[in-house]
């Protein structure tokens, strides 16, 4: 398994910590952002520096956040060709089918509804090919 630099984007520090614990146990390094704007600013800084090797390969994205929400973040990332390799997974309380369809249509690759167990996150990362089958934390 190749560790993936992962962005955890959620306005709740507790939720960022819960997600960080799960992916850190997979050996993934984590950067945290409290909202979509903070995450986009972080990505812009890396792109300006020209060091694409520091771009996260995965982002776990909450939906309801101040300043820039998760759907806006997904749309912004998908609009930037330089970020085309970033895998986007929504992790949110928005559980209506219409919202899931909306997020996937905007460019999210996967969708996890809160509350979740660590296994739910691992299962989705396995589906995305980021974690081998049979891994548990």
């Amino acid at each position: 398994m190749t560790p993936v630099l992962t962005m955890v984007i959620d306005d709740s520090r507790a939720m960022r910590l819960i997600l960080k614990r799960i992916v850190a146990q997979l050996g993934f390094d984590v950067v945290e952002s409290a909202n979509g704007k903070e995450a986009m600013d972080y990505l812009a800084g890396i792109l300006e520096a020209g060091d694409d090797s520091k771009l996260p390969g995965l982002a776990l994205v909450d939906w309801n956040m101040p300043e820039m929400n998760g759907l806006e973040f997904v749309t912004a990332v998908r609009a930037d060709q330089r970020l085309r390799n970033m895998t986007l997974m929504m992790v949110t309380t928005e559980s209506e089918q219409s919202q899931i369809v909306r997020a996937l249509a905007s460019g999210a690759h996967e969708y996890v509804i809160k509350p979740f167990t660590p296994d739910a996150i691992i299962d989705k990362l396995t589906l995305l090919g980021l974690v081998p089958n049979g891994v548990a934390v």
Partner: protein
Amino acid sequence: MTANPTENDLRVIAEQVWSSYLDVDGSKPLLPVPAAKVVVDVTGSVSVTGAWRGHVLVGCSDGASRNAAAALLGIELDEVTDDDVADALGELANIIGGNVKSLLPEPCALSLPHVHVEGEAGRYPASTEVCKLNGTWLEESVTVSVLESTADFAEASAT
């Protein structure tokens, strides 16, 4: 879906939240108690707007709010700060509110969470209680309630 959420809906949602974050090993469940035995010192809330208007509240005694923060943040109880409590109660309200929203008519939108420390009494005068779950967790009070905004309030807000 047009029916209002029920106490049983709140129980199912709360059990999912507790088993995911606050009682992972199943040894510290949220237990139902009579309303008279509930104490609320801190409340996390989210508002729902759209086809249905109202609020979802998670009320805790001071002890329960600190237990929740310690569990969610993975820290010792004596390390918990007021900011930790606000973050934890806000996220619990967000998660429970989001799941309640899925039971309501579409389209609805969820606000960002708000946490206040003086209890819930009188904060939502233009609302009626739809359902409420009263519980005890680690011998501390927890309530989850759904309030629907009255028609008068909705009309007043629109003008």
